């Protein structure tokens, strides 16, 4: 290879790398700034409550539907799978563990990323391109405190609550399939669920949920806040918010599982 070919190759390799490092730095600065404003007054309680409703209450149907079907399908799958080595009786605990540790937090976070993260990016992005964020600044209001801190707080608080409700609904879904389709005795099913329940199952799921809630809100705010160039830019920001939140949720799900359960 000639010298200029090597140079060309290195340049091709380096450009995206530099770009990636720059955006990683921008994101880090954004997080530091956002966290600082999350803990310093003034706090906009009204905006926070509005986000709680928007993110939490209105997500209940979606989360409920997702988790009930997840619980049902796990009951069905584990029954037919475990029949191979005669361990059908483990269905109740398999449903319990998979719903509380994995399915409820991950599926809820993905659904909320699609529903709320996208809406956040679109709303903040539109405010950016129509100069509403500039207007906030000129009205002596810090957009990080007014827009971003309430959303991050509500993400961290709301998702664990949603997941707790999702846990109950998901286990109920497993129960319905177990009792009415697979013919388990209702009392036995409930007993075996309760006996196998350990606090780490629930707690790890809720901690995951808090982290996922932060990720979803952060990606919505970050992508919205830096969007530019009119309707197309806002559309791009919305897509980026959902995609990046979903990927990060799956990555952090593995990392947190590793922290909680690998010994």
């Amino acid at each position, binding site marked *: 290879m000639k010298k200029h070919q090597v140079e060309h190759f290195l340049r091709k390799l380096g450009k995206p790398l530099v770009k990636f490092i720059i955006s990683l730095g921008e994101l880090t600065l954004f997080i530091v700034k956002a966290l600082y404003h999350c803990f310093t007054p003034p706090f906009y309680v009204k905006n926070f409550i509005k986000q709680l409703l928007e993110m939490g209450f209105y997500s209940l149907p979606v989360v409920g539907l997702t988790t009930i079907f997840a619980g049902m399908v796990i009951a069905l799958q584990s029954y037919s799978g475990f029949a191979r080595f005669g361990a059908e009786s483990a269905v109740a605990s398999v449903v319990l563990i998979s719903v509380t540790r994995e399915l409820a937090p991950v599926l809820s976070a993905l659904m909320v990323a699609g529903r709320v993260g996208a809406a956040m990016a679109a*709303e903040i992005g539109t*405010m950016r391109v129509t*100069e509403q964020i*500039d207007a*906030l*600044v*000129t009205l*002596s209001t*810090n957009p990080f405190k007014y827009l971003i801190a309430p959303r991050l707080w509500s993400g961290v608080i709301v998702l664990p609550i949603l997941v707790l409700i999702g846990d109950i609904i998901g286990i109920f879904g497993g129960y319905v399939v177990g009792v009415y389709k697979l013919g388990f005795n209702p009392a036995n099913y409930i007993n075996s669920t309760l006996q196998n329940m350990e606090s780490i199952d629930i707690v790890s799921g809720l901690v995951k949920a808090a982290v996922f809630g932060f990720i979803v809100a952060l990606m919505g705010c970050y992508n919205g806040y830096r969007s530019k160039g009119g309707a197309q830019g806002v559309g791009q920001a919305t897509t980026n918010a959902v995609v990046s939140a979903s990927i990060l949720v799956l990555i952090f799900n593995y990392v947190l599982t590793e922290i909680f359960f690998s010994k």
Partner: protein
Amino acid sequence: MEKVKISIRNLHKSFGKKRVLTGVDLDINAGESLVVIGGSGTGKSVLIKCIQGLLTPDDGSIKIDNQEVVGLGLSQQKKFHDKMGMLFQGGALFDSLSVWENVAFSLLENKKTPREKAKVEAIRVLRQVGLTPDVADLSPSELSGGMQKRVGLARAIITKPEIIFFDEPTTGLDPIMADVINDLIVESAKGLGATTLTITHDLASARKIADKVAMLYQGKIIWQGTVKEMDKTENPYVRQFINGSSQGPIKVEV
């Protein structure tokens, strides 16, 4: 000698390789209305945004009341934002809030005025800009362009600021509505005794509002004077701009 309210020296701002402001020098006296004219894309908006701290200049100095504002953090800027108001080109009304909540935003969020009192004050200012109280509870998206401008103006003047910025106040309005807005701008600025900085390419508007006119071209102030002087000047750039001719020293980049 008159008191200088805003003093800009050697202001530079580039975006990547594009050099937008290349050494702006400008003084605005207290209580004066200065209109900056110039073609599209000559950096008029960038100038206003630098003064307000929405953009950080690359080089140069901006002094308000003799205090340097370049390089201040958001919390220090707050002190200056408290004495400024701005009317944005598109209104920039918050669409999650009603009209009166928009107008009373500063009162509600910064001064912690009780809602009933803030609403009364908002309706008073809305009347001042020629809007009836029944628009107060509407959402900004239900208003026409002219009405949105009026609401934006009401929001800018409710705190009785010392300095008001107008970003293309008449763009997108029919000539009659534009004149109504011009009247309102003159009235409210004179009423408050405020210093105002307007950027526009609408000469009718400039003639009506301005005590002084400055022309921005290629990132510099190339001419300034009164409206009368503007009509008499021999400056070929200004002549071309006010005659609206495609022939002359100003080359339009296509």
